[in-house]
């Protein structure tokens, strides 16, 4: 239903929309990135970030700094922003905000299960989990031997429970099963999020459909490229693609049979929104594909702020912050490894 959000949205969502637009104004600008790219050491980066919203999170970190420390502390800023918004949100915004974190929850589940399979200590694994994806019984994942136990002992009481119906088996967990589980869960999550946004309707449904469809298409391309030369069969590959998006269903049929990057390019160039992405790459090359996708995603996320009275701004803000943290990670790695000439290979400017 269009047109009436302006009358009622601000009753429950006005404060938080204002908050998230304020947070958006705090994202790093091109001038900030130019200063960061000229840093000689991680301490210089810390000094430049002290003048930004990350300042309070990094100021007490002792030298010598490590790149993972910078990423962890910047992630804490994102988590604090998110928790503040979540505790102020009412339905359906609170459910919408929770949906945003399910991807991290899936990553954490897979991290714990994989680490346990490799006989790693659970505490060590918990420290590596993303804070946005934590839930109460996450440590109990370590006792499960197969997916049925995983579901029965732990995940049945989590928001991921509905996504497990397609991957419950009694087979013991191994690297291949875990990978298929990760991608099956993520596929189910995206489809569920998409349906939820469609139910919300209005501008939220319009903008989120576009953003989630792009996410589904990007996943399909990445799954295709990453599965080239592996034991994953064509049928298994096809089963991991989401059932929505611009590429669904004909693009997926063509991607499922691709054997190299050039065939993937030939498929994607038939779709005008992705033609420009693949036009930036030379033949046979896939190194810059990630950056091209990130740039397109950032463009779409920034456009979400051009309209008011919808929930997509919250999703857009979270994703833009995550992109910013990725940028900071890359800049830190280039500075730490004394490879500043490579810094613009992966930095995506937001403004």
């Amino acid at each position, binding site marked *: 239903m269009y047109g009436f959000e302006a009358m009622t949205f601000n009753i429950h969502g006005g404060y938080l929309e204002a908050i998230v637009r304020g947070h958006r104004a705090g994202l790093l600008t091109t001038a900030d990135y130019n200063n960061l790219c000229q840093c000689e050491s991680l301490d210089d980066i810390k000094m430049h970030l002290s003048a930004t919203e990350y300042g309070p999170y990094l100021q007490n970190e002792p030298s010598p700094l490590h790149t993972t420390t910078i990423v962890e502390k910047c992630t804490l800023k994102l988590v604090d922003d998110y928790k503040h918004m979540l505790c102020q949100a009412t339905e359906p915004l609170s459910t919408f905000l929770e949906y945003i974190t399910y991807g991290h929850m899936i990553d954490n589940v897979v991290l714990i299960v994989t680490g346990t399979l490799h006989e790693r200590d659970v505490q060590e694994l918990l420290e590596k989990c993303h804070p946005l994806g934590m839930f109460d019984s996450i440590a109990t994942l370590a006792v499960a031997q197969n997916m049925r136990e995983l579901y029965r002992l732990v995940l049945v009481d989590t928001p991921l429970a509905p996504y497990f119906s397609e991957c419950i088996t009694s087979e013991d967990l191994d690297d291949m099963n875990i990978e298929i589980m990760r991608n099956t869960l993520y596929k189910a999550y995206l489809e569920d999020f998409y349906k939820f946004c469609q139910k919300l309707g209005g501008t939220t449904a319009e903008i989120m459909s576009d953003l989630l469809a792009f996410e589904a298409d990007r996943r399909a391309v990445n799954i295709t490229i990453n599965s080239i030369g592996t034991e994953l069969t064509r049928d298994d590959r096809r089963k991991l693609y989401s059932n929505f998006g611009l590429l669904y269903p004909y693009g997926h049929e063509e991607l499922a049979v691709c054997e190299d990057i050039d065939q993937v390019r030939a498929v994607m160039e038939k779709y005008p929104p992705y033609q420009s992405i693949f036009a930036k790459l030379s033949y046979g090359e896939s190194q810059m594909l990630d950056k091209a996708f990130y740039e397109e995603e950032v463009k779409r996320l920034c456009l979400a702020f051009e309209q008011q009275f919808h929930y997509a701004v919250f999703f857009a803000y979270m994703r833009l912050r995550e992109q910013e943290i990725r940028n900071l*990670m890359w800049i830190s790695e280039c500075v730490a*490894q004394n490879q500043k000439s490579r810094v613009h*290979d992966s930095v995506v400017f937001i403004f």
Partner: protein
Amino acid sequence: MEERHLIPESGVAADQEPSQEAVEVVNRREVRLRPGAEEKLVLQFMDSLNSYLSFSHSLSSTLGQAWMELASARHSMGTARLNTSLLDLKFHPASTTLKIAECDDDSVDAKARFVLRKWISSEEVGEDEDSNSTKSPEPADDDDEVCYSQVRRERAKSLSVFGILIPPKLRAAQQSFERALETLVEMANMQSSFLYSFHQLHQEVEDTKE
């Protein structure tokens, strides 16, 4: 003009006095042999040192590239999918071994030779234990195609700790580190070679002084 100086032969008693003519013949022979052997050793030393320095430079750039590719893979996959806590602590055989070839010569200055054997499966460890050959990842024969597919499987198995669907950047990082390891072994062999040559030259100089 040939130098005439008394060089004691091993086994010749000090109080014996060989004829002057015999000494001169011995001297001329030793003077003819020593420059050729010395030059050869000097050339070997210089060649080995030059190769060592080239490999050292190559190693530095290969390692730099490998670390950047690893950082790029981490940027792409995320820190949750690529971190040290996913490495496998279960007992498993090494995929790559380094063998120090045994020399028959027991002397201290014997040249050591390092042989890298990459991507050997656990079944092959027992069979090929006595073999000195380094398996190349890019064989040409039909029989070696089996070896090549096995190498690809071993590479994939080694990376499977981070998942099955991994980006090409991580595979590229693996290959760069693999090249760095090969370069390190070549450097060790070159170092062994020039140290051996240096020691031989040093011996020659010491012998000359005596």
